[in-house]
């Protein structure tokens, strides 16, 4: 058989992962936010049928992975997927494809448009070389945090700040009953009393109030930095609150700048471990330069999860 000709440009950005079998690779596809048009899905099915061995794998970061692809078919696979604008994802020390839940578009719990944010970040930052290690971004529509945004290098969680129009309140008590954080109690006058220090910005009061007496005064993202999972998990901590949706990509870029600079010479180390080494104040100060209105006064280091190993 003649040596197959492969365009190595395709391989550079990653997304082609060697399997156990000889000449076989997994091709990880780029699916920001887990959203996939049906036409694209049909194209992927056709390609998988033609070049694969009868199945695909759904990755935990919302990607579709083509399995058992012979490397001789790389160019054909990339070209055929391109007919439906389907691109290949990345691996290695780069900004990965962002994940996101359904957000507010059709999910009643969502407070922000996570899908839009994921697409925007994918467009602007996907594949950016960090110089150090992988870099993951995730979006959750509300503090339920189904996508586990806090275990990403930068994690976004939809948030609202509630405000009461007491004239519209009919004293039904539903908001106080629904607030799981104990931030709302019904006062003497039958109107809710708000304890701001207990509020986690979930918006349940706004959603439950039958007369819309509770409204969202501010809307945006709670932003955590420094999370990761794996052998030595860290939960990211809060660096900004109510970050507007249109500042998301710039905020991530600012974190990346700090990471690139501070991790110089540190080798394959995630941003959370760099924060543990440098202290969180350094990153806070850096972010305050461009995001003063949203960056918090103080924060805590990434929270180390005890995995109990080695015993």
């Amino acid at each position, binding site marked *: 058989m003649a040596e197959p000709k492969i365009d190595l440009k395709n391989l550079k950005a990653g997304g082609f992962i060697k399997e156990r079998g000889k000449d076989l690779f997994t091709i990880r596809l780029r699916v920001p936010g887990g959203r996939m048009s049906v036409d694209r899905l049909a194209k992927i099915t056709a390609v998988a049928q033609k070049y694969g061995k009868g199945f695909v794998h759904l990755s935990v970061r919302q990607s579709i992975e083509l399995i058992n692809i012979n490397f001789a078919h790389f160019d054909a696979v990339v070209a055929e997927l391109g007919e439906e604008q389907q691109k290949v994802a990345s691996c290695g020390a780069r900004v990965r494809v962002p994940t996101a839940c359904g957000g507010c578009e059709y999910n009643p719990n969502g407070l922000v448009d996570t899908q839009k944010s994921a697409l925007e970040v994918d467009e602007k930052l996907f594949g950016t070389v960090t110089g150090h290690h992988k870099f993951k971004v995730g979006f959750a529509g509300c503090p339920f945090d189904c996508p586990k945004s806090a275990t990403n290098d930068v994690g976004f969680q939809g948030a609202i700040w509630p405000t009461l129009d007491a004239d519209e309140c*009919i004293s*039904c008590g*539903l908001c106080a009953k629904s607030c799981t954080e104990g931030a709302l109690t019904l006062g003497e006058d039958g109107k809710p009393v708000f304890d701001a220090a207990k509020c986690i910005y979930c918006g349940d009061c706004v*959603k*439950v109030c*039958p*007369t819309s007496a509770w409204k969202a005064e501010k809307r945006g993202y709670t932003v955590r930095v420094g999370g990761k999972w794996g052998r030595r998990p860290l939960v990211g901590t809060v660096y900004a609150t109510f970050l507007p949706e249109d500042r998301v990509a710039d905020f991530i870029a600012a974190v990346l700048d700090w990471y690139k600079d501070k991790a110089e010479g540190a080798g394959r180390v995630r941003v959370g471990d760099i924060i543990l080494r440098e202290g969180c104040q350094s990153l806070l100060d850096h972010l305050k330069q461009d995001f003063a209105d949203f960056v918090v006064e103080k924060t805590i280091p990434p929270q180390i999860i005890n995995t109990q190993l080695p015993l």
Partner: protein
Amino acid sequence: MATIDLRGVTCPTNFVKAKLELEEIETGTTVEFLLDDGEPVKNVPRSLKAEGHKLLGLKETDGYYVLTIEKGED
């Protein structure tokens, strides 16, 4: 005033029943619905308001809620 007992009826059937009841009456007439605590009382009043009916009251009584609605324009 008519009282319609929707206790024991789960979402979204309770909303559909309330909607059908409201179709039977004149604009401006008030009607009471009895709703279970939990999802029903969280969903039904809001959904009826979104359909253009006027929410006159929502009060807890013995573990359930009484919702008073004035029928809006058809």
